[in-house]
């Protein structure tokens, strides 16, 4: 186990540098004129242009310039310095302010997914083809069919503005209640997927030989489901949830924008819009780490859930 984790950590280092290189290259290639993008439609004075060009080495272009800037970035990154955004703020500070609120939001969404998605999935799996199963099937299809970009404003309008059940936006220092609606919206998509995944997995396992054996041994149904079926059924669900945690943290661009939550997605969106290369690369680098770690955790969890899986 220890050797497995160590090997994975070493692989993570490679993966991290590989992805940052790609992201940096994409940002570099896609960059038109960041100085002009920052200024919008107003002309940029020569002095201002010279100042920013020098500060961010924007004059280093071409392949040589790319590697010069990339290694410069890496050097600072290894020293723990994420650099400055084009508006002169420390990206480390931006992230430090943005992460807690995004993590909170992601955890609420995750909790919603696990509590409602997995529970409903188990029930639907046990009572396959029943009323509950069929109605959740329709509901989840509906949710899966509506993209967040539609769902979020609709939820905000009806639940926040019209019926005033929730505050319409969360703001900077939101309480749990204010984050509930965005959390549900954010979690609804993964909730639907988790529900379908659990349902299929449970239904399948219920027909497995070991369940038949357990049943014929006279075990109570509750024990069969909660100990044997659930444990085996959760493997694909855990895989999904692990990947989803990374998604929830980075994929909140729309939700955070609609509910005005200044988290990571909110800053990423601004960075992309204003072609703020350092900010985008900084955020994405951290997101890469989040993905890598959550994937590692998922792999370790496999071994816990399924004794047949051994990492040597």
């Amino acid at each position: 186990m220890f050797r497995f984790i160590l090997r994975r950590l070493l692989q993570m280092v490679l993966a991290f540098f590989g992805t940052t290189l790609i992201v940096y290259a994409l940002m570099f290639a896609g960059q038109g004129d960041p100085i002009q993008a920052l200024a919008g439609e107003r002309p940029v004075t020569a002095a201002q242009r010279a100042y920013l060009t020098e500060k961010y080495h924007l004059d280093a272009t071409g392949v040589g310039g790319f590697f010069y800037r990339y290694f410069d970035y890496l050097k600072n990154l290894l020293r723990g310095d994420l650099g400055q955004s084009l508006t002169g703020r420390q990206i480390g500070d931006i992230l430090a302010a943005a992460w807690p609120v995004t993590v909170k939001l992601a955890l609420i969404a995750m909790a919603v997914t696990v509590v409602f998605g997995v529970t409903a999935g188990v029930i639907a799996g046990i009572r396959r083809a029943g009323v509950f199963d069929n109605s959740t099937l329709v509901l989840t299809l509906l949710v899966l069919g509506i993209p967040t970009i539609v769902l979020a404003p609709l939820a905000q309008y009806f639940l926040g503005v019209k019926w005033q059940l929730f505050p319409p936006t969360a703001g900077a220092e939101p309480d749990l209640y204010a984050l509930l609606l965005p959390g549900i919206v954010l979690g609804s998509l993964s909730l639907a997927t988790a529900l379908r995944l659990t349902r299929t997995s449970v239904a399948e396992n219920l027909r497995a030989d070991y369940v038949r054996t357990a049943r014929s041994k006279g075990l109570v149904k509750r024990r069969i489901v909660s100990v044997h079926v659930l444990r085996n059924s959760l493997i694909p669900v855990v895989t999904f949830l692990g990947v989803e945690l990374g998604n929830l943290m980075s994929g909140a661009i729309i939700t955070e924008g609609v509910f005005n939550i200044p988290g990571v997605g909110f800053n990423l969106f601004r960075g992309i819009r204003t072609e703020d290369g350092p900010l985008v690369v900084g955020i994405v680098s951290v997101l890469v780490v989040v993905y890598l770690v959550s994937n590692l955790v998922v792999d370790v969890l496999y071994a816990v859930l399924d004794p047949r899986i051994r990492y040597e």
Partner: protein
Amino acid sequence: MRVRRLAAWTALPLAVTLGLAACGSGGSGGKSDPNAAVRIEIAEPQHLVPTNTNETSGSQVLAALFSPLVDYDEANKPHEVAAESVTSSDNKVWTIKLKPGYTFHNGEKVTADNYLDAWNYGAYAPNGQNSSYFFEKIAGYEDLQGEKPKAKTLTGLKKVDDLTFTVTLSAPYVDFKSMLGYTAFYPLPKAAFSAPGVLAEGYEQAPIGQGPFKMKGSWQHDAKVEVEKYDAFPGQQPKVRGVEFRIYQQMTAAYADVLSDNLDVIKEIPTENLSTAATDLGDRFRQSPASSLQVLAFPTFQKEFSKPEVRKAISMAIDRDEITKSIFKGSQQPARSFVSPVVAGYREDTIGAAGEFDPAKAKAMYEAAGGPKKIELSYNGDGGHKDWIDATCNQLKANLGVECVGTAEPKFADLLTKLKQKQPVGMFRMGWVMDYPSMENYLGPLYSTNGSSNYYGYSNPEFDKLLAEGASAPTQDEAIKKYQAAEDLLAEDMPVIPLRYGQNNFGHSTKVKNVEVDLFDRVDLLKIEAVK
């Protein structure tokens, strides 16, 4: 004050219900509550240093913290606020006398030095200030440019006594007094500098000004900036205790908050909500004139567009009224002049016959002049311009019998890059928002040979001469005459086709009244009142 980026976005095809009470102060019922704070929407400011702030969100916050030397009256003429007088006998050497009694929020007295320090800091190129070009008319500006400037201070700025200083311009400029109302000309306290000419670290996080409000805490990035009344302010006192500038990334979120009274003022109602704003907000949905002007420009350096007759014929083939009515639903107004109605010297219909929709005449003229068979209209795809560009194209197709395509560039910056390299992009859209209320600001930067935003390659020595004469005219009225003569030359040459004037479409909650948005897209903080 504004960002032209915002200008590009405000010009969205809007769908506003017509026939609104535009000017009444909505929600006038209810008593004023001087102890309440109001909440106003802004975007995350880029900077909060006066000489580095050139977008609306930052300048809205600074307008609370600072009091300008001059402000503008109903007719958009400047009048003194923090200045006692701004005078000049020759429009070249200006004497600025400050009103006594002003103090910074840290207790420092405001003196002439505070202005000189701030302006010198702003003009010094290595400081990289966004608004440094505002000082380019002051003598000695050139010496502060380049990587290693020759001087650190402007030779044109001289202190006379504690409350008086003179500004010598490198050439006479009649509208200098109008310029002084801009954000870049605020003073900075001694506390803002850690050494002469070096801005103190952290000043921007809690700027100290001499205005009606002072900071309450520091700038909470991406969240809010809070200010509270500064009791020692000698000028006109605000009618609220404080203001919370709440930062939004998306206007739709701000709009939802205004609907549920969670936010008091939204300065720009998002496009998608404009069609329902009148029913949602009633008389709390308001409109006021804005300074923006939308045009279609010609690359006059290209052969097919080099003849004024071709350009005029295209203008005559566009039905402006129809487009503003059917696509913008009255949220913008048709334009037939090169300057906006919000500045002194504006005249209606200066483009004359070229502004009249006359397809038959247009076609005859177009064919006689040998206009191109195919027209391309370039625009930035991120600003919601597609609808009106397509509508314009359809009109040109129908009325001139030409092929017409709209070409989207991802961002306005991409379009500008292509124009600078003189790549053939065809006709292209441009928007302009004024820096300060003056006719010159709509003419000089856009059409003079060396104008900073002259992307059309337009050059007319006669025009340049008239502008220079206007700037050095002894009085504003005489200057306006020269500028109007210059505008007439533009009408003959038509380097661009004026299409529409902008409007502010704003809204407020039931908790405030007397909400006014000025020409610079700022809420008037001295007028706004909270309702009990």
